[in-house]
């Protein structure tokens, strides 16, 4: 009877110890180990850095790195980070490939609905023929009543250039029409 008790006690002690160790191990790994990355970060920030640092830098090199990242992300079943597609789209437009640029901007919007206002703003300006360059003042948000007002010395004023994509690449009017409808 006594030995039986001792066995039970020893078993319980062991169970308690195992539980404590398991908890410690599990928690340590949970604390120390970073949670799995939400996105594939292989090229986006590096490309943006090259772009920002060298006044645009080498578009082709940046584009290649990002296209490669699309493949590795796909292979790893990982998501592309926010901004990735829009940045790649801008690079395409800079290189004169408006269609692929628009496609990426649409992709950004589809992947991240939060991107919609900015992407719509950019895509609106893609559709505009450069001669119209409709903006009188302010960032080419156009259409907003505020844009027509004196803009209170905002440094944004006085620019007649339209938004980047339009300046970089005038898209076909037909395409612009479908974009309008879509947005």
């Amino acid at each position, binding site marked *: 009877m006594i030995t039986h008790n001792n066995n039970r006690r020893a078993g319980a002690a062991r*169970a308690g110890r195992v539980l404590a160790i398991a*908890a410690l191990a599990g928690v340590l790994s949970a604390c120390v180990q970073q949670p799995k990355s939400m996105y594939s970060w292989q090229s986006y920030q590096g490309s943006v850095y090259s772009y920002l640092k060298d006044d645009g830098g080498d578009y082709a090199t940046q584009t290649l790195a990002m296209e490669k990242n699309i493949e590795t992300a796909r292979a790893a079943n990982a998501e592309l980070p926010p901004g990735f597609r829009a940045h790649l789209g801008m690079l395409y437009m800079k290189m004169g490939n408006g269609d692929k640029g628009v496609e990426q901007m649409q992709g950004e919007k589809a992947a991240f609905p939060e991107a919609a206002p900015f992407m719509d703003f950019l895509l609106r300006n893609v559709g505009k023929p450069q001669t119209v360059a409709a903006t009188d003042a302010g960032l080419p948000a156009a259409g907003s009543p505020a844009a027509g007002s004196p803009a209170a010395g905002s440094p944004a004023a006085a620019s007649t250039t339209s938004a980047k994509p339009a300046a970089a690449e005038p898209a076909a009017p037909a395409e612009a029409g479908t974009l309008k409808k879509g947005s």
Partner: protein
Amino acid sequence: MMNNLMRAGLVAVVALLTGCVTPPQKNLDYTAFRESKPASILVLPPLNTSVDVAATAAVLSQATLPLAESGYYVIPVGVMEETFKQNGLTSPDDIHELPAVKLREIFGADAALYMTVKQYGASYAVVASTVTVSIDAELLDLRNGAKLWSGSKQVVHANNNSNGGLIGMLVQAVVDQVVNNLTDRSYSVAGMTNAQLLSAGTPGGMLYGPRSPRYEAQ
């Protein structure tokens, strides 16, 4: 007896589990942040009071990762910069002066992050060279101008020259300076600084955003 031991184990589990969750610092007021529930963040080009012109690009380009991994949509920074440029805005000082309403209208972001790079780069000394990056940041709600959060972080990355005596140290100092230039180590340290400053779940840090699996639990 058995129950006591089992209980001890369970207590350990609970204690450790709670110990793992770092609560935000108590002296920081998260009321406005919690009410605001920002989903998207516009990271404006940082002001740069350091002596290195590369600081703005290094800090701006690497702010997306910690914020996105914390659950936020981050407005594409390169495209943002280009949009400002097309409108004659190239100075971060001018951009930081833009009205929130205007920023909200163009970029559609819920909040904007205003950063200042105070130190960026290597300081060379005979015995050891260090790379220091120091950043201040403030998050403002673009819908009502409310201040949601602010923080600052300095990371000093020093080399360990523990071996080789004085001659070894002198050689080491020369090598390190070369390495600093070649690999742009300041860029890496800027990435670390951003990660420590802008990752959610750290004491006094940002809250998690809606895209994070930890958003609901916080």
